[in-house]
């Protein structure tokens, strides 16, 4: 009757924490998944306590910790984000990304960010070319973001752009990619629009499965033909385009190797799956990771329903559980935008 101590809880090498350190934001983007912008952020002592705890957990699990610090707008309180960057720089962290709208990053902040060796990438957002972007993110936001991109590239930062695609902007994916190439942007990431939070009433923005197939195909073709910007196609459904290409597609990370921390310490399985599974002021990350019924359900692909249930691509995809939840109310339903017959 032997037992053995484990050093790893999954087969993944990385453990990813997407940490929303504040709800405050200076923009009101129409597609945003936030439901309110009330600042219920924790104080810096609480944030540092959580940061240390998350690093300890990754160490305990034998994982490379990777963090994305975001908001709201994480530079709404620059003192807090720099304190956390200081902490993560000192800890057992593999890399840190900052997800920001970029509008508050001035030259002083840019220079201050230079010292962080673990800062891998700064991710900004654009939703298309100028007119389309500004309709969604607010007048003048396109020019401000372009200015920030140039400022960051002058200081040799790795810059990526996130575009959230829906019916309102999907025909601008490739035109925007070409613009970003001219600006020497390093990476371009597409995420599917999910109607939730304040954008819950915009279900007409959802692309059909055929439209998703078309835009993903265009992105994949661009990816194969161009070096800048590099499309990062590590998202569910991309594998359907070419299951043998390991550079595209990703299995849903929920329950596998990622968690989202909200400004008040609440923990979500994924930011786009807004179901509270614990709070780090009240319990350990271990308690959440080991005992959450939702996470255990998610780890079992037998629970998938509809065409996802018997899909041959379960080992490399499983669809987007957040999309299924937003559209059907059941996170095990088929991904509504999957085009596989």
């Amino acid at each position: 009757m032997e037992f053995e101590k484990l050093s790893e809880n999954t087969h993944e090498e990385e453990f990813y924490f997407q940490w929303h350190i504040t709800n405050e934001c200076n923009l009101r983007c129409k597609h945003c998944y936030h439901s309110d912008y009330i600042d219920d952020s924790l104080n810096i002592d609480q944030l540092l306590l959580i940061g240390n705890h998350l690093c300890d957990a990754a160490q305990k699990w034998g994982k490379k910790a990777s963090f994305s610090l975001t908001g709201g707008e994480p530079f709404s309180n620059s003192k807090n984000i720099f304190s956390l960057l200081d902490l993560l720089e000192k800890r057992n962290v593999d890399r840190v990304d900052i997800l920001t709208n970029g509008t508050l990053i001035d030259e002083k902040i840019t220079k201050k960010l230079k010292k962080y060796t673990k800062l891998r990438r700064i991710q900004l957002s654009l939703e298309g070319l100028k007119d389309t972007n500004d309709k969604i993110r607010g007048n003048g936001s396109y020019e401000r973001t372009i200015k920030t991109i140039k400022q960051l590239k002058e200081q040799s930062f790795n810059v990526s752009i996130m575009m959230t695609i829906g019916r309102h902007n999907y025909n601008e994916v490739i035109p925007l990619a070409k613009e970003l190439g001219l600006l020497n942007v390093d990476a371009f990431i597409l995420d599917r629009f999910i109607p939730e939070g304040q954008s819950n009433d915009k279900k007409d923005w959802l692309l059909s499965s055929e439209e998703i197939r078309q835009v993903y195909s265009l992105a994949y073709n661009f990816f194969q033909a161009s070096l800048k910007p590099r499309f990062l196609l590590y998202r569910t459904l991309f594998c359907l385009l070419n299951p043998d290409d390991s550079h595209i597609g990703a299995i849903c990370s929920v329950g596998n190797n990622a968690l989202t921390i909200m400004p008040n310490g609440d923990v979500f399985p994924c930011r786009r799956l807004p179901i509270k599974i614990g709070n780090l002021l009240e319990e350990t990350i271990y308690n959440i990771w080991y005992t959450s019924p939702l996470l255990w359900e998610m780890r079992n692909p037998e629970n998938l329903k509809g065409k996802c249930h018997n899909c041959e691509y379960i080992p490399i995809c499983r669809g987007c559980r957040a999309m299924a939840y937003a559209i059907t109310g059941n996170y095990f339903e088929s991904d509504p935008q999957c085009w596989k017959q």
Partner: protein
Amino acid sequence: MMKKYKLNKNVCLKYDDVSDKYYAFCVNSGDHFALNRVGFFILTLLEKGYSIDEIINSVHKQENIDLNICKTDTINFLNKSKKIGIIAIEKEDHNYDKKRQD
């Protein structure tokens, strides 16, 4: 005199039917241990409040092994589990020997 063990309240037992593996998770320290099926069975019975005698008899019946070997192995397993913090001694059962004689 017999020890009375209890599962540490910070330990969570889990059978993962996807990987067909058995675990004991310490939700305070983050330690986690892989168990075999019998070890998991023992800890599950302990969690339900079974006495050591009841556990030994249950394992003996389920695994169809010699009672003395079963007793030795079960007590060894419980002692190892205590050493790594999965279980704790709740109290000494001072009537254990008397009860056994009865």
